[in-house]
């Protein structure tokens, strides 16, 4: 694309860890969700894994909290082009949940679904190996409702629409099935480093 006349951009220091087309939002944490923020108390929250697993099961708030605590510290990247550095989420690694249900060898993908009805799809490989969490704390405090509290999925190496707020469950599948935004033109995987924003990217 041609240079935009008169546009220099804001003075910038190179920011390691900033994917292409993204900017550092600093202290800002914009909220982007298409639905009404649900009124969901921790006591009413449950998380279920089913589909292609040996033992489908659900956890309530207290049961989920008996799993080993795990923290993510790093950056998050939103497809609307902001990235946020130095975030700290507390929760449980998704591996700890998956160890319990034991995914079938045939499981390749997952659909994450939220208590709001929102859905998003992910390759199973993006949810394992210490790269995904169920997060209920932000900066040592309970995760605010507008950011997905009481608990959200956290997959920080993908664009943030994959990190379903108000997470209710995962269904493991042997094929990929587009979720809410993916049916609305967004990319099936959403890797920020490859700028997989929209289908066709």
């Amino acid at each position: 694309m041609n240079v935009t006349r008169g546009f220099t951009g804001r003075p910038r220091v190179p920011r390691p860890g900033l994917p292409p087309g993204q900017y550092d939002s600093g202290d800002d944490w914009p909220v982007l969700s298409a639905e009404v923020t649900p009124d969901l108390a921790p006591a009413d929250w449950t998380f279920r894994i089913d589909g292609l697993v040996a033992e489908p099961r659900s956890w309530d708030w207290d049961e989920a909290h008996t799993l080993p605590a795990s923290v993510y510290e790093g950056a998050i990247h939103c497809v609307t082009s902001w990235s946020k550095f130095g975030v700290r989420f507390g929760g449980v690694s998704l591996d700890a949940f998956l160890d319990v249900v034991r995914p079938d060898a045939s499981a390749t993908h997952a659909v994450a679904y939220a208590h709001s009805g929102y859905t998003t799809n992910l390759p199973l490989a993006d949810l394992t190996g210490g790269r995904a969490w169920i997060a209920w704390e932000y900066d040592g405090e309970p995760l605010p409702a507008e950011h997905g509290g009481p608990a959200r999925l956290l997959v920080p190496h993908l664009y943030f629409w994959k990190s379903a707020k108000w997470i209710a469950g995962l269904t493991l599948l042997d094929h990929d099935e587009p979720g809410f935004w993916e049916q609305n033109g967004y990319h099936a995987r959403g890797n920020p480093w490859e700028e997989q924003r929209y289908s066709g990217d």
Partner: protein
Amino acid sequence: MTETATTGGFTPPTRFAVPGRIAVSDRAAAVWQTATLTEIRRETPSVATFRFAVPGWAGHLPGQHLMLRLTAGDGYTAQRHYSLASPPDDAGHIELTLDHVEGGEVSGWFHTEARPGDEVAVRGPLSGFFAWPGDRPALLVGAGSGVVPLMSMIRHHRARGLDVPLRLLVSARGPEELIYAAEYGAETTAVFTRRAPDGVPVGRLSAEHVAPLLAERPPGGWEAYVCGSNAFAEHASRLLVEAGQPVHRIRIERFG
């Protein structure tokens, strides 16, 4: 819906899951096109409308947005989302309405540098979720520049002479900050939060504004579209829910 197929009968308690209205064209969403600025119109002291010629524009539906990219001499790019202000029947042209955000990188360039003849890159239209093709009664609630996608809906309604019910509640700090002030008709109620003309009350959007519109309830009920800052979207969507609008028939576009 795929939801039922994949979630083993899980019923979301808040019944969101309204699917996107419109399938988005993969091709249009993926391709960057050159948009040439043809005209700038001032709307308020801090807001202006930018009209572009985009010869290959595939068309859009009221409510959709696009992604816009500016490129600096050293290759640095800045991309932002902007709602389409113009109605679909504006062949080869689109209009965006930008608030001049203090210290804003992209809106700053538009408000201080841009002039007719300048070229920027756009891709879209994006998201079939917030789109309204004019088929169902629509209750629109916006604040500040959040009225932009809603104006596209009103213009579409007018241009096509549609008779499906349409109402707009628009909030602004004062009359001089009300975007598109001259264009509103009987479908619109303006709410002023800081300063109002004589005889008009000052105060934020409240249950009193929402109740009469919900009481009107057209056949089939309203499809509600809420747009603005996150704080406004939270406030307005709560008012709608408290007034009886079903949660799963509220679509929200948050400008961050």
